[in-house]
């Protein structure tokens, strides 16, 4: 057991855990956050995605020790109903999620990618989102929402 300090959604936190414990369990259990979600524990789906210093990471495999001294942002920290991230606003407009459990992966990955490439083409977006899973099949709506957000960002 060791102590790890980092920032989550603007709040400084400290977690005592085994260094190899995935960040996901620190966020959900030690810090009591409802997001992100456990989907596979294998970095194969994206349901656990958060930003670590602005880059999307799969918190189900990232050791909590790797977050030490860094800034973690969850979907709740990305935007709020009052101050939404353009992607979140677009997701609501386009009514994207069905079960909604996959949402962290898509929104957090796209948010980081659009920062680098706000005018990404359809093909570039599809490549950037490769590896994420959505079992309800909302992929077409996801692309619609990202394009709507791009229009707002432009």
């Amino acid at each position: 057991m060791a102590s790890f300090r980092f920032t989550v959604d603007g709040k400084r936190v400290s977690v005592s855990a085994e260094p190899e414990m995935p960040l996901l369990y620190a966020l959900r259990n030690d810090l009591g956050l409802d997001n992100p979600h456990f989907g596979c524990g294998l970095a194969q789906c994206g349901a656990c995605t958060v930003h670590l210093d602005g880059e999307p990471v799969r918190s189900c495999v990232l050791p909590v020790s790797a977050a030490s001294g860094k800034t973690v942002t969850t979907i709740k920290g990305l935007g709020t109903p009052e101050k939404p991230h353009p992607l979140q606003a677009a997701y609501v407009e386009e009514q994207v999620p069905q079960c909604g459990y996959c949402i962290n992966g898509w929104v957090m990955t796209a948010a980081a990618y659009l920062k680098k490439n706000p005018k990404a083409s359809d093909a570039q977006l599809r490549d950037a989102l490769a590896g994420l899973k959505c079992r309800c099949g909302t992929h077409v709506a996801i692309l619609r929402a990202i394009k709507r957000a791009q229009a707002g960002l432009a």
Partner: protein
Amino acid sequence: MTTLTRREFLKSSGALVVSFSAPPITGALAQVAAGKPALVPTELDSWVAVLPDGRVQAFFGKMDMGQSLEVAIAQIVADELDVAFDKVEVLMGDTGTSCNQGGASGSTGVSNGGRPLRNAAAEARRLLLENGSKRLGVPAEQLRVEDGTILSQDGRKVAYSELVGGKYFHHQIEWNKQVGNAMDIKVQAKPKTSQEYRVVGKPFARRDVAWKVYGTDRFVTDVRLKGMLHARVIRPTRAACKVRSVDEASIKSIRGARVVREKDFVAVVAPREWDAVRAAQRLKVDWHALDGAFPAMDQLHEHIRGAKVVKREEPVKKGDLAAAFSAPGVRIVEAQYEWPFQSHASMGPGCAVAEAGADHCTVWTGSQKPHYVRDGVAKLLGMAPEKVRAIWVPGPGSYGRNDAGDAALDAAFLSKATGKPVRVQGMRSDGTAWDPKGPACVHRARAAIDATGKVLAYEFVSKGFSRQHIATNESDPADSLVGQATGIPAKGTQIFGVPAESYGFENKLLAWETIAPLVDNCSPLRTAHMRDPVGPEIHFGAEQFIDELAAAVGEDPVAFRLRYLTEARHAAVVKAAAEKAQWQARTSPQRERGGELLKGRGIAFAERNGTAVAAVAEVEVERNTGRVWARRVVVAHDCGLVINPQGLRYTIEGNVVQGISRAVYEQVQFDRDSVNSVDWASYPILEIQDAPAAIEVVLINRPEVAPSGAGEPTMRVVPAAVANAVFDATGVRLRKAPLNAERVKAALSRA
């Protein structure tokens, strides 16, 4: 107007607090005087309530899994009661607040589920008008209602809330004595006609989108109780295993972790989730395995063909098939189609939280049938059903009897065993390897064509594993893994299905045959309902065979279907899909089949419990990789009266993508001993690179026809539409699903 958030509801319903004796309904209704009538279908108060501030609550025994059913029910209730849509809140899937309407089941959310709500709302309006008439001293027929306020012609008014707000109707209604999907009530009021609808038929946004997007409310995975233990159930890596011994010392270095075992059910619990996960990984269990429980995977369909038939039914049989098939000069066309086992593979593994005491249990579940969870938990723990409350909280995906049903009973069992609240969540393999599967099957099709090109006789016989090795719900522990592992033998039902269409072939046989399960108890290849049970399986074959017949007589696939379809609504969706897709009439395959990128189009049609649907798929096939991309899919959909066109479109879109996924990518991998599809790498599904560029939906609205289902029908036409398009593009007929790149490439290289 303030709407009660789902969180407030959960809070008051006990989801976020420990106590079982939390107020039964909501903060607002808790203001109501004591004496709420019993929660039985014969009480109007079991269906609808008017709150002191004029808001309306509808108590719904089904639930919305993200396809906007909640919106549709609110629309129906708003119209019947004459209140604004925003004033209606639908409380779903809590056995403490709703009657057993069967949960999410068979796309009946609107068609069946909406019926009693509609009747109850109409009856409530009638009573309120009667009451208002007395209050205002004006005959009821001279009153009208505007957004929950009763108005007389001379301008006097009284609000619903003044009449009954926060109070109960105490009004008896007639119940049809059915439990589940068929539950309905009879009332004196006459519900409105479709011409009178103001809210039904208009697009309304869902109310479960924002919290999912902002992360501001909770999934079942987020329910936390004080003193709760985290649990993982240990499932063997091989099929048909029994526990020889468990080495509890193997996890003794993990603080607080311990083993719970009964017979072949083994679980670990720990106060911290990570400790439960580590304990599950480390626990040494000596399993006694049965060798060769399964056929080799490449022999699966041979096994099915050769297996003894346990049950056969012939739901459609007309004419004289033997005579027709042996008529002089007829040409026989035959084909067989094969479909693999498929996994629900929900986005997250099943999860449930249970708090069991000596004589009560509360379960928070993502199962789509919480009322049956209540019954199953009651039987498992030896309690009366009324001592158990199951509360549905949105879970990580559903689409049938998936692993959420097992998680609910696991959690209840473990809570009882440990005396603590217990949260169970599976690991990925529990959701992929150990969920109940969609059945593998083989379809034999045969037709006789006479000299004029007319189909004289037609046979379609499906043979496969029953679709219900376990029941479609978890009301009996015999249908759960914990039940079977602790010694309750599986019962199972032998049932399959036949194509749903109206092709008017004079001599026709539609039949099914089922075979025995590979392993009787605790099988990772046990079957249960998966979205549109046996729909995609059967129509993948049936609608390809229709195309094969069209090709055999040199006719365009759309024209051929229109020639034989006998129901006008069936023909209408085929025409509408073809028209929207700008279908060019010609025979398949197309003539230009050179080059690396082959392009084609295909159509498929089916009916499902009153809903007619046709899909046109336009595909691209890469010759050197075998990749199939359904670039554009057009769907024409007729489910009678459309309640919410927006929700309906999105539901159909999801069906299309999931349907492509099942047709092109999905198959459960296994060998003689084990299921080897344990994660997303070994059970690939469609990813975004392969999502269509366009999905276009034509909704045929028939206000004069009662609404039928939309959650599943599209699923059954997509696989054949894709396969027919691949044939059109390549000239190669692929009769085995999935049409993955490896298989397509091999087939093209052989051609």
